[in-house]
């Protein structure tokens, strides 16, 4: 009988609905320094993923179907190893939603290209570092997380109108072109705007490496001219664009990342 007395109390305890909170996030603000670090890491992850595409071009374009190293965890292992080799540091910890989603998007872009990559009839698939970067940017930016990545270039060098720079990006590219700009230095702006709303913005310059010159360099760099006499060379590249005649190490464009402050300043993943 004694025990029965506690039943009402027991029932009350069990029926109280614990107020819901999303345990994935700490509700704190991020500092400019933390944000800059995050954006720096994301830019480098993006670059490493592009390099992996470049290294794998022979595999991508091969007319064989077994290419499992380009998908899922196998692909990310390559990105991580490339990141470590290129930047001489460990691949970033997956301690932020944006980094996790960027990795997920990298894998998804490869999955979305699986049919093309595995196509045994098409010799040139068109998945090159630039198109991968463009696809990755669009995919990641459409997640509705309040963060945008754009693989862009100065208007006179732009090939894909969907990657056109906005005013902030045009101005930042101009800074990169100034004589006293220290090469490979990114630009961070903690009081910028995106679509008229307060935003953190970060852009890292991209300089032409050998992987870019096959399309953006001179006729001598054009893969279509390989093993052909000079008289037969073309300045139209494999994508069908006129080559820009750019040089090794010259500024080609940049990776621009923008985070809307509204929303972002209210959460950070644990």
């Amino acid at each position, binding site marked *: 009988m004694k025990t029965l007395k506690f039943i009402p109390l027991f029932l009350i305890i069990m029926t109280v609905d614990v107020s819901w909170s999303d345990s994935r996030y700490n509700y704190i603000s991020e500092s400019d320094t933390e944000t800059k670090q995050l954006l720096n890491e994301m830019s480098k992850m993006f670059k490493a993923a592009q390099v992996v595409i470049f290294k794998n071009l022979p595999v991508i374009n091969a007319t064989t179907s077994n290419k499992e190293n380009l998908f899922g965890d196998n692909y990310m292992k390559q990105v991580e190893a490339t990141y470590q080799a290129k930047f001489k540091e460990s691949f970033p910890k997956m301690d932020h939603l944006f980094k996790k989603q960027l990795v997920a998007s990298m894998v998804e872009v490869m*999955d979305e290209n699986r049919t093309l990559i595995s196509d045994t009839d098409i010799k*040139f698939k068109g998945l090159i570092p630039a198109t991968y970067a463009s696809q990755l940017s669009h*995919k990641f930016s459409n997640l509705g997380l309040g963060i945008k990545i754009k693989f862009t270039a100065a208007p006179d060098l732009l090939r894909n109108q969907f990657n056109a720079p906005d005013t902030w990006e045009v101005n930042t590219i101009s800074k990169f072109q100034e004589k006293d700009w220290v090469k490979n230095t990114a630009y961070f702006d903690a009081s910028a705007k995106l679509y008229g709303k307060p935003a953190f913005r970060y852009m890292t310059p991209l300089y032409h490496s050998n992987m870019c010159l096959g399309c953006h360099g001179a006729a001598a760099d054009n893969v279509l001219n390989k093993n052909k006499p000079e008289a037969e060379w073309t300045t139209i590249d494999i994508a069908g664009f006129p080559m820009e005649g750019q040089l090794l190490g010259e500024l080609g464009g940049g990776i621009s990342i923008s985070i809307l402050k509204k929303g972002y300043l209210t959460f950070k993943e644990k």
Partner: protein
Amino acid sequence: MLNTTLIITLFLLSLNVSAYEYRVGIMEYPPHAVLKKGVPEGRVVDYIQAMITSQGHQVHLFSSPIKRALTQLEAGNLDILLPIEASTKGVSTFTKPLFKLVPGLCFKKQNFLPFLSATHRFKGMRIGHTDGIDIAKTLNDSGAKLIPLKGKFALERGMKMLGAARYDAFYHPNPIFLYHKNNPISKTIACSYFHGLSSNTYVAVSPRLSNKNRDFLEGAFNEMMEKESYLNFFNEL
């Protein structure tokens, strides 16, 4: 003895182990979801059922025209509704999209163009499309000869005509679900995409669904997508 049994019974009843039946609205969205004698079928249905039943819960499927379905969702008679395009106004959705829509062009493999940003290459090409469809501006402005195809099953007929070289290319609103390894047409046709024109489709959620149930469903959805994206699931057919 009676007291002990009562306490144990109450304790078990208070645990949240009972299966919940989620009311899932399915929009007709070929090839992902089709109605067969009024019953929704397709990979979207399989995917969402697998997601919910794997968590020990049950699914009750509904299907109705979009307007009515949205009203039912708003009223709380449906818990979730899918697939819903990003352009649908006034609905709350899971953050992560179910899949994305990217329009593109399909070619016979020997004429394949991988870069649709090189729009100057379309000049003079005969590009078929289903009549009344919105065509990407970049294609409209390219100097291609755009040929509308009228009538029923225009997309299917267009692909056959492409195969018969009646067109140089055919515009498809979302070719990723056409050009995949399990579709025999992919032996002769390949497609490329206008990536900058992508839009998403989502799972819409009833505003009347409790936070707990909403978070449970969204968590299950994210978990499912991490294990296997809908795109991969679709392509496994």
